[in-house]
């Protein structure tokens, strides 16, 4: 497997339905053709994201398994990650897993107002925010008033 495919297949340890590529945190994979050395560049969703160490280890493990033991994982912070970088397939997987995907970010640096969010289970727009923060730094907790199910929402950033 080429290093790009191997790194792109690594699953996010907190949102296990998404790969790091679908989440948009995999920025680049470069292989030096003469030495075989691979440099992977990733960016955190949030600065304090505690999953970063696990992601780095998982990438190195995946590359080693794919025959690229000489790998370095670098972290960059600019340009800053945005939920707009989550792929279409990633959004569909989030919704299928009961996590309401983020709305598009209109202006950089501004947290968009959430007017309505559809329940990822029954599709009802009759939902309410329970908590502005959720089980991970990137999520908020919501509830559907139609089907009564609570659900996670990946906050637009």
């Amino acid at each position, binding site marked *: 497997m080429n290093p790009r495919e191997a790194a792109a297949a690594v699953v996010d340890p907190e949102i296990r339905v998404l790969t790091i590529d679908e989440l948009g945190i995999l920025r680049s994979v470069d292989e030096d053709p003469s030495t075989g050395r691979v440099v992977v560049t990733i960016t*955190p969703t*949030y*600065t*304090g*994201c*505690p999953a970063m160490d696990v992601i780095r280890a998982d990438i190195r493990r995946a590359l080693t398994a794919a025959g690229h033991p000489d790998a370095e994982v670098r972290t*960059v*912070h*600019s*340009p*800053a*990650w945005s939920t707009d970088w989550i792929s279409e397939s990633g959004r569909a997987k989030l919704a299928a897993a009961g996590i309401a995907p983020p709305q598009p970010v209109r202006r*950089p*640096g*501004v*947290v968009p107002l959430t007017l309505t969010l559809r329940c990822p289970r029954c599709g009802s727009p009759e939902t309410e925010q*329970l*908590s*502005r*923060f*959720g089980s991970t*730094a990137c999520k908020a*907790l919501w509830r559907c008033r139609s089907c009564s199910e609570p659900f996670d929402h990946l*906050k637009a*950033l």
Partner: protein
Amino acid sequence: MNGPFEFTLRLGDDALIAAQRLAEWTTRAPEMEEDIALANIALDQLGAARLLLTYAGELEGAGRDEDALAYLRDDREFRNCLLVELPNDDFAVTMAKLLLLSAYQLPLYTALAECADERLAAIGSKTRKESAYHLDHAALWVKRLGDGTEESHRRMQAAVEQVWPYAAELFAPDPGAPVDPAALRAEFDATVTAVLAEATLTRPESGWAPAGGRDGVHTEHLSYLLAEMQVLHRAHPGAKW
């Protein structure tokens, strides 16, 4: 003593001490959702602190990493503002502190994102998004409590008056710095004035303006905070888990 190292250290210390204070609310917040919120905001501050202190250590060039700067300095060597080291007190005071801090950090990080130093610009472009959310959260609570019951209004007003004097120190001019804090005052004033007005609170008059944090002259509260934060690392140097 106003080079890029001192500037970066100040920002890193603000974030680190704010993170440690906010984390004290964990398991003690008035409701579960708020417990998670304060822990998440503390985590964001810690994330910013790690980036800033790592870079400060590189700028200094003396081989100190983020852990050396966080755990092996004494109180007089910290450069955080006094605001972040003040005790949490009641929930209203914590929210008043968070309002002032995030109303300062948001324009600071936004300006940092545009500064000439690439590393600081990268950090600013990341942290400003998080600060916007912190400000939103603090403003929501200040409005809810200020425009709430008679008792919540009384306590929110008292909280704002208690912490207001400490805002002055944030904007001490530093014309040579990558971002001059004095240039952020107008946006801070506009933000805070609007939130207080909507919260039916009265903005305190500016008068007594305690300072000294940027020179390492702190309140006694910082020493106790550091004792708790640093004890494990000092007892077991290099400890990891």
